[in-house]
Structures are given as C-alpha cells and as structure tokens.
C-alpha cells in the first residue's frame, strides 16, 4: 500500500527534487570539500583543514559584517512585513482604480537593482539630490549616508524595503484574496467589529502565508548584496559591509575560493540560527498536518 502510494507520488515530486539535487545539493558537497582547501586560479587545491573557517571567524571585519547583516535583516524584514500587511488590507478593503494601484505597488519589484541604486544615489545625493534638498527645505534631518555608517545602513534598509516590499505584499495579498468572503459575512452577522474580524478571521488565515513570506524574505535578505555594494561598496572603511559583500570579495576580488566556501557555510549556519524559530513554527503549524 505504501509502495503503491510512493510510486504514484514520486513522478510528481521528481522534477522539484531533481532540480534541487543537481543544481544545489551535489555542487554543495563539492563546496564543503573546497572549504577545507586553499584554492585559486591557476593553483591546485591544497588541503588546509579548518584553517579557512578559523580565519574567517576570527576576522573582525567578518564580525562587523555579521552584526550589520543581522540588524539590517531583523529590522528591514519585520518592517516590510508590517507594511505589506497594511497595504494588503488596504487593498482588500476596496480601493478605486485598484488595478492601476496594484501596478504602481508592484512596479519597484520590476526595477533591476543596478538601476534602482543609481536612481536612489542621485535622489539622496548629500549635496544635490532632490530628496535631500526637499528635506532641507522642510528643515527635516537629512541622511548623511556617504559619511556616517549608521545613516548609510538606514539608506540601504530603505532601498531594500523599496525593492522587495512587493514580494511580501504579493504573498500576503494573494493569501488575503483566497479567504472566502462568506467568512466575513458570517462574522458580520455574528456582530463582530472590524478589529475582531481582523483578529479572528484574517490573522489566523493569513498566518501560514505571512510565515512563508517572513521565512523566505529572511533567507533572501540575509544574502543582501547589491543594495550595499552598489551604494557604499561596504565602505567607508568596511563599516557598512554585509556578509554577502565579504563573501563576494573573497570569491571574486581576492579569488580565494576556499575562504569563500568557508564563508558561505558560516553564512548558512548563521542564517539557520536566525531563521530556526520560523522554520520550527512552520513545521509545527503548517508543514506537518494531520489528516
């Protein structure tokens, strides 16, 4: 009986797992081996054991990058989820020109990161950028992002939210659309207020979707690269560096492949720790359903 079921579902599961296996899992095994070696262009890999890991973990620049990444990820992703939820509810409550607005909301997602950074760099240019000038005109504080590392991190955070809010929004909005109208009807008939309907109907049914959005957004945000690299290159003096920049430098600037591989695995461990909570929640609530 089990075997029969397995035989029936295997072909449907195969494409996904074959792709993941061949493109990610198997090459990753090579990368594990690579992380235990010194390797570069024109060199035969030489075994160095855990030396790469030790060097990276002891590097103060890596600590800084890790700290920057963790703070950025936690703040930006949660802020983004809140904004995405708010927007999804706003749309669901009925808006004029909804189609047009939807296009407007999703537009930033369509812009390539390179183009977006060029634009934002100019808009926020400390001397001449239109937004900086506008802020100055209203006597509001400006972002001195090319000099102060903390301001730069704020701009990077803003930029990543701008680029990826549509991602969170789509997931939450699609889930919101999938909630049948009858449930709200029933709640209204039972005399529930707006807030109660939100707490008792919307939130629990949106739960799994929000969790997925959060989890994957975490995974992607941990690898944040272009926003930081194109804006500040991790400067001044590596103060706005994130782990993805550290990894990129090792792999592409210094061509230290063993070190890059080790950095990648440390990143995996770190993001696993960070996302562990959410994965557990997903497992408990969503993944294992008793039918």
């Amino acid at each position, binding site marked *: 009986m089990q075997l029969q079921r397995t035989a029936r579902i295997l072909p449907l599961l195969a494409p996904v797992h074959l792709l993941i296996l061949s493109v990610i899992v198997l090459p990753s095994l090579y990368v594990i081996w690579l992380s235990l070696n010194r390797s570069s262009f024109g060199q035969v890999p030489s075994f160095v054991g855990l030396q790469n890991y030790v060097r990276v973990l002891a590097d103060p620049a890596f600590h800084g990058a890790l700290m920057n990444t963790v703070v950025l990820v936690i703040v930006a992703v949660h802020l983004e989820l809140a904004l995405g939820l708010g927007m999804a509810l706003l749309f669901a409550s009925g808006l004029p020109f909804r189609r047009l607005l939807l296009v407007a909301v999703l537009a930033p997602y369509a*812009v390539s990161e390179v183009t977006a950074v060029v634009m934002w760099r100019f808009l926020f240019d400390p001397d001449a950028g239109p937004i900086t000038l506008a802020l100055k005109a209203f006597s509001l504080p400006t972002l001195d992002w090319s000099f102060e590392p903390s301001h730069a991190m704020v701009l990077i955070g803003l930029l990543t939210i701008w680029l990826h809010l549509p991602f969170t929004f789509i997931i939450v909005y699609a889930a919101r659309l999938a909630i049948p109208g009858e449930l709200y009807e029933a709640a209204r008939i039972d005399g529930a207020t707006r807030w109660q309907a939100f707490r008792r109907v919307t939130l629990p049914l949106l739960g799994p979707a929000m969790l997925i959005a959060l989890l994957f957004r975490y995974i992607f945000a941990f690898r944040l690269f272009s926003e930081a690299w194109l804006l500040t290159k991790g400067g001044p003096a590596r103060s706005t560096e994130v782990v993805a920049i550290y990894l990129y430098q090792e792999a592409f600037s210094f061509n230290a492949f063993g070190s890059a591989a080790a950095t990648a695995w440390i990143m995996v461990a770190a993001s696993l720790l960070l996302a562990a909570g959410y994965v557990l929640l997903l497992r408990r609530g969503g993944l294992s359903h008793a039918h």
Partner: protein
Amino acid sequence: MRTERFFFGAGKALAVAAILLWSLFPILFIAASSLKPGQDIFAVPPKWLFAPSFKHYAELWRSWGAFFDGLLNSLLITAGATVLAIAASACAGYVYSRNSGRWLDASITGLIVVRLIPPIVVTLPLFPIVNALGLNDTHLVLILLYATFFVSLGTVLMRTFMDQIPRELDEAAAIDGASRLTILRKVIAPLAMPGVLAVAVFVIVFSWNEFLFAFIFTATKAKTAPLVISEMIGSIDGVDWGILFAAATVQLVPVLLFVVVMNRYLVAGLTAGSTKG
C-alpha cells in the same frame, strides 16, 4: 458616524498617495531622465522642466543592438524558467498538500533549508560541469538554474494555497475517472491561481533582472539584457547616462506589462475561488 467615515476615507486617500509617491517617484525619475538631454540628467540644481526627446532611444537602437538581442534572450529564458518552475512546483505542492508522512515532512523542510546556501558559491563547481556538458551559453542552462531557485518557494506556496481547496473536489473528480494529473490541471490549478500567479511574478522578475548566473554561464548566444546594461556602466569608456536610462526604461516595460495583464487573472482567480461549487 459620518465623521468616522470621512476620516477613514481621508486616511485611505493619504495612504494611497503615499504608496504612489513611494513606489513611482524613483521610476518616473528614471523614465524622465531617459527623455532629458544628456547634460541635464544629473544637473545640480536638478532640472525639472525640459523638452523631452527620444534621442537616447534612437542612439540605443543604433549603437547597442546587442541590447535588443539580449531582451529576446531574456524573454525566452524567463518564459522557460517560469513555466518550468510553476509546473514543477504545482506538481510537488499538490503531493505535499494531499499527503503526509515523516519522509514528506523532512523533504519539504529540506527544500527550504537548502535555500540557505548562497547561490554564488555554487557557481564554482557548476561552471566546469556546465562546460563539460556543452550547456554553456545556451538558454537551457539558465532556464534550469533560474527555475531551481524558485521551486522551494513555489512548492511551499502552492501547498499553502492548495490546502485551502477541499478534498471533496479531488474525490469527486476521481470518482468521475480523472487521473491525478488531470485533477491537478483541471480542478486544483484554476482554484490555486493566486498562488500560481504569485510564483510566476517572482520567477519572472528574478529571471528578467538576474546578473550573476547569466554572466558566468553565457557568452554571446544567450547573453541577457542585464549583462548588456552592466557593460553600459563600463569602467573604461564611461557611461552615457541617457542611453543607460533609456535601456533601463525599456527593460522595465515588459515586466510592468505582465503585471498589468496578471491583474486581470488575479481578480478572476478571486471570483473563481469564492464560488466553490
């Protein structure tokens, strides 16, 4: 009562205005810059009024023909990756939705955990393998790679959406003699359309703008638009910002068009979902 509704309405209007400004201002700036004369694009103080011209687009067509070839390649690759990702995710998502068991739960957790690996390092072993297989500079290799990056998210999303479709529909169709695949295609997929479209948008946007893997695995035949754009920001002979923004605007348009078209289906999906017969 009236005042409450007024404030609510005003609040909404304000929120809408904020959303529009937030989302569209930078994009309109890009599009406007592509119509400005070259010297005014980064002018200080910024120039708001100008006589628009399509000069940069004409120049783009003239001197960067490779860009338009790149657009065609991007189109083929994006379409292929999207179809593959959706098809594979729908099949797997369906299985995870309708079945349970220790191995299944472990495998879906595995699908998610595996995505923690930064794709950049995977290119190191993949480059020689792809070359050995003769897949370098083909559309197929990017189609496979891009699809792979979204099947985890796709499967989980599909599963979540399919969970909400009652099993009775499956059973009814099975009684009518439909095979699993037919049930998936004709019964489940239409009802899970919001999920399908969500995955589609993600894969399309990613594949359309992706740079790193396109750079490593293609050369000329399958060169995508983002690669050409990165050459425009070249470090030797300098950037012609007008042409660059023209290219960026052209690059934007197809995805925006897709979003507009997708809107209709998203709304239709909502209708289909709520009238469950």
